[in-house]
Every structure is written in structure tokens, then in C-alpha cells.
């Protein structure tokens, strides 16, 4: 049975990785999860300088989901490179660094700095709904998506994953724009912009007023968008959005995702990633699937 998948020349031991922002750089979860079992660890977004993030409360639970507005708090690339990359290198997993910035120059600075680091891929976050500048500002205009992809590709030594926002009218337009700019892989979806009101305190549940909705509540939207994008572009897709179980992961794979990311589920069950890997194995045994590639985009 072969669970290995290929993303732009990088071979993952299995298609299950962590979703950026839900797993730190793996250190905290390593007490609970064997990181060697993961296809890849996708790190929390890293910027050129430390970011303080948003005021608290930063999260709120919603029905079947949660809203977060962390605001991309991160220690900056210097500390990340010194502390987090050596930590992850101790494990037999792939390292995917999520890169965030406020301007194109910010993104380029991080991408250039990482070019000589032992990092397997870069995931460019142009879809964070919780920061005013950068992030989503790049992700909602196809011209901007194509332009920043092209710029990043000029400087990147590793394959480039563009992380798309679902907060758009037509996801295929954004997927094609990233592909046109030279993206090697797409990851989708980031969170959907949401809001929760605390009726007792008569205020917003998160201090940022709006935040990104994640969790099983958004999964059908994510599966639909992955399917649409997979039909529209030739580059591989990493699917995510509310994956809690192996069955959820398989939905994304059958819809056209080559790999999947597990995010909010880590908060519900820290063992979610490894349980999903085991569940996919069980499914392949049950249905006598020799190679996971037989499942990718099998539903058309």
C-alpha cells in the first residue's frame, strides 16, 4: 500500500499535514503527537519582523466551528530560523513554512532569507482575514494574486504554495491567477470571515469584531471549492477546511486534493492527525486501494 504523495517534486510519506496557525512550529504538539508520522508540518505564519497580533479575546466557539482573530502573532524570521527550523529538522517529516507579510517586499524578505534554510516548501499566506494590510488584501484580486505569486517565484528556491482565500466570488479565478503567476501548488481554503455577538455582554465575541471561521461547519464549502479549483487548474492542491476524521480527509482527496491539512481538529483532539492517517490506511485496505494516487480527484 502506497500513501506517498508528490507535491511539486517533494515526496510526502503520507498526504496528511497540519494547517498553518493551529500547530505552532510543532514543538508544543510534539509532547502528544509523533511528528515523524506526519506528511508535513506547516508552520504558523512567519513575517520578516515579530508581530504582536490582535487584542484578546482572540477566539470564540460557534456551532460546529470556531472564530479566530489571532492576527498572525509571530516571533519574526530570525528567531524562527534559529529555534524552530532546527527543532523540526530532528523529525522525519517535511517542513513547510507559512510566510506572511504586509507588503510584497515583506514577503520577499522572508522568502529570500529562507532560501538557504533546510525548508521543503513555502506556503504564501495571501488570505488571512484578520490583518488589515497584507494577507487578504492580496488574495481577493486576481491581478494581485498573480503579481505576488510571480514576485515570490522570482526569489523562492523552494516550491511555492499559494494559500487561497474562500472570501471571493469565484475561487477558480483566483486559482487560475495563482497558476498563471507560476504557483507550484495551491492550498485552500483559509478561514471564512465570520462574526459572533455575545448577547449577554452586548459586544463582539472576539475583540477584532470579525474573525476567521473554521471547523466542520465550513467543510462542505471547502470541499466544493477544492473540487472547483481542481477542475480549473493543473497544479496540485492541498485541501483543508474542517477536516476532523479520515472520512473528511478522503472527501477532499476524492474531490481533487493531493494532500490535506488538519487544523481546528488539533484543538478538539490533539491526536487527530495520526488518527486520520490510520483511518485513511484502513479505508485503503477495506477498498483494496494500492496507491493513494488512485483516489486523488476520483470523483468527477
Amino acid at each position, binding site marked *: 500500500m502506497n500513501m506517498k504523495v508528490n507535491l511539486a517534486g517533494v515526496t510526502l510519506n503520507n498526504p496528511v499535514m497540519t494547517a498553518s*496557525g*493551529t*500547530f*505552532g512550529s510543532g514543538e*508544543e*504538539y510534539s*509532547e*502528544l503527537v509523533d511528528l515523524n508520522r506526519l506528511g508535513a508540518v506547516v508552520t*504558523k505564519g512567519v513575517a520578516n519582523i*515579530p*508581530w*504582536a*497580533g490582535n487584542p*484578546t*479575546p*482572540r*477566539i*470564540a*466557539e460557534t*456551532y*460546529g*466551528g*470556531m472564530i*479566530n482573530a*489571532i492576527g498572525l*502573532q509571530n*516571533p*519574526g524570521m530570525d*528567531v524562527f530560523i534559529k529555534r524552530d527550523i532546527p527543532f523540526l529538522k530532528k523529525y522525519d517529516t517535511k517542513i513547510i513554512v507559512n510566510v506572511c507579510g504586509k507588503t510584497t517586499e515583506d514577503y520577499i524578505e522572508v522568502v529570500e532569507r529562507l532560501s538557504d534554510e533546510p525548508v521543503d516548501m513555502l506556503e504564501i499566506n495571501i488570505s488571512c482575514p484578520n490583518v488589515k494590510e497584507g494577507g487578504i488584501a492580496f488574495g481577493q484580486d486576481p491581478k494581485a494574486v498573480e503579481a505576488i505569486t510571480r514576485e515570490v517565484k522570482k526569489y523562492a528556491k523552494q516550491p511555492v504554495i499559494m494559500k487561497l482565500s474562500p472570501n471571493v466570488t469565484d475561487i477558480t479565478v483566483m486559482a487560475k491567477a495563482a497558476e498563471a503567476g507560476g504557483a507550484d501548488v495551491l492550498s485552500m481554503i483559509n478561514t471564512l470571515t465570520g462574526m459572533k455577538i455575545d448577547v449577554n455582554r452586548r459586544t463582539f465575541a472576539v475583540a477584532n469584531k470579525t474573525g476567521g471561521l473554521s*471547523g*466542520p461547519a465550513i467543510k462542505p464549502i471547502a470541499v466544493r471549492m477544492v473540487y472547483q479549483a481542481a477542475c480549473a487548474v493543473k497544479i496540485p492542491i492541498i485541501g483543508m477546511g474542517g477536516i*476532523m476524521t479520515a472520512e473528511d480527509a478522503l472527501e477532499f482527496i476524492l474531490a481533487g486534493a493531493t494532500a490535506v491539512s488538519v487544523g*481546528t481538529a*488539533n*484543538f*478538539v*483532539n*490533539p*491526536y487527530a492527525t495520526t488518527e486520520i492517517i490510520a483511518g485513511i490506511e484502513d479505508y485503503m485496505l477495506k477498498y483494496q486501494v494500492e496507491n493513494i494516487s488512485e483516489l486523488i480527484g476520483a470523483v468527477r
Partner: protein
Amino acid sequence: MGKIKITASVASQVMLADGVYSMWIDAKEITDQSMPGQFISVYTGDSSKLLPRPISICETDREKGLLRIVYRIAGKGTDEFSRYQTGDPVIIMGPLGNGFPLEAGISEKKALLIGGGIGIPPMLELAKNLSCTKQMVLGYRDELFLNEEFLPYGDTFLATESGTAGTKGNVMDAIREHGLQSDVIFACGPTPMLKSLRAYALEHHIECYLSLEEKMACGIGACLACVCKSSEKDDHSMVHNKRVCKDGPVFKAEEVEF
């Protein structure tokens, strides 16, 4: 061994006051490792509610492998917990956070343990484990709970907002009324209480440890939801933020700002 998520079972549960419950949980793997001031994440059995509820450890019985939580019903999750019966499964992860530094309350020192409302429970395990002389100050809105369980460990002073027991007012009013002196303060309670205690301790140069609360998701330091403002640049975050769940919940008063 380190922190672990397990399906434990409820050993017993009783209501202590209106909306306040005491649950003993059979969880040897967690009990064995826990320190006063640490907490556990309690997961609901309802898949529409994703996030665990962080609840402080009130007491442990190491011989029997039991740990106790005392919590207030604050929403649908804690309401579900309150209906658990003896033998029911309860999904928990722990022990989490740093806990109170027991070495700060040794030998000839005189400690003041201050709890406000649902911040009172973790002070009980601390009272049991601190070797120095202790006095307790417990603040309530109205109805008392747990107060009698502190009596074996030292003088216990009460404050109620309603004035039904002890000093009318808050814990600061009780401290002033009784002229309570101390070398070290340990406290857990609502933010306004911690804020006044911080100011009081800094003004009087008293060593002071505060246990904070914030909305949490992962409970282990990865998601950065539950940060508090730190006085110095934190060497993990590289900004003025510390993680309540991992770097705390207990902080030295000078470390944090409100």
C-alpha cells in the same frame, strides 16, 4: 510522562452552591503529575462544541488517583459537565500550565492565599501543599462554597459583595479590615481583583503570584489565542505577549500588565 488526553470516569459529583459543582475524576495518569495551580482541558461530548473548557485542578487524592474540579456553569459546555453522574466518561487533557511555585512559600515565610469566585478552587490544592504559615482570603458575590475546606490550613477570612458573610466588599476590603500582612501572595480570581492585588503587591514590595484566565483553544501553547500582556518582551513570542495556557496561568505580578 507529560500531558496526556484520556477518557476518564466521573468518581462523584455534587452541587456546592447555585451553579457551582464539584466533580471528582478518576484520572491517575494526570493526578500523579499535577501541581497546584495547574488546570485540565475538559471536552464536551457534543461534537457541535469543539473547544475544551479549561478548568483548574481544585484538589488531588494521589493515593486513589483522583482529581477534583470545582467549576461554575458558564454556558452549555459546563452545563453538560454538571449533569455527569458517577461512572460517566469525561474526556480530559492535562496537566496543563505551570502551576504555583511551591518554593516561594517555604520555611518562615507568611503567605496570603487569595481566591475570588470561581478562582477559589485552585487555592485549595495550594493550601494543602504550601509548607509555610498561611492565611486565606476568599471573596464571593453572595453564596459561599469551599470555604470550610480551607479551615485546616490556616485562618480563613471571607468577603462577600452582598455582605452576607465576612467583610462586605471584596478581598481587598477584607485584607484592609483585618490588617493582613504577608511575605508572599498567591491569587486567582477575576481580572479586576488581580489588577488591584498586583498594584497592592508592587506598592508594598510583596512577592506576588497571580493565576490568569483567558479564552483558550489548544490549551498547550500552540494557537496563541490566550495571550496576556507581558511587561518585558517575551523570549518565546518576541513581543509583549505571554501564553496564559503554557507560560502561565501563574505569573509573577511584575511579569504581566492588565
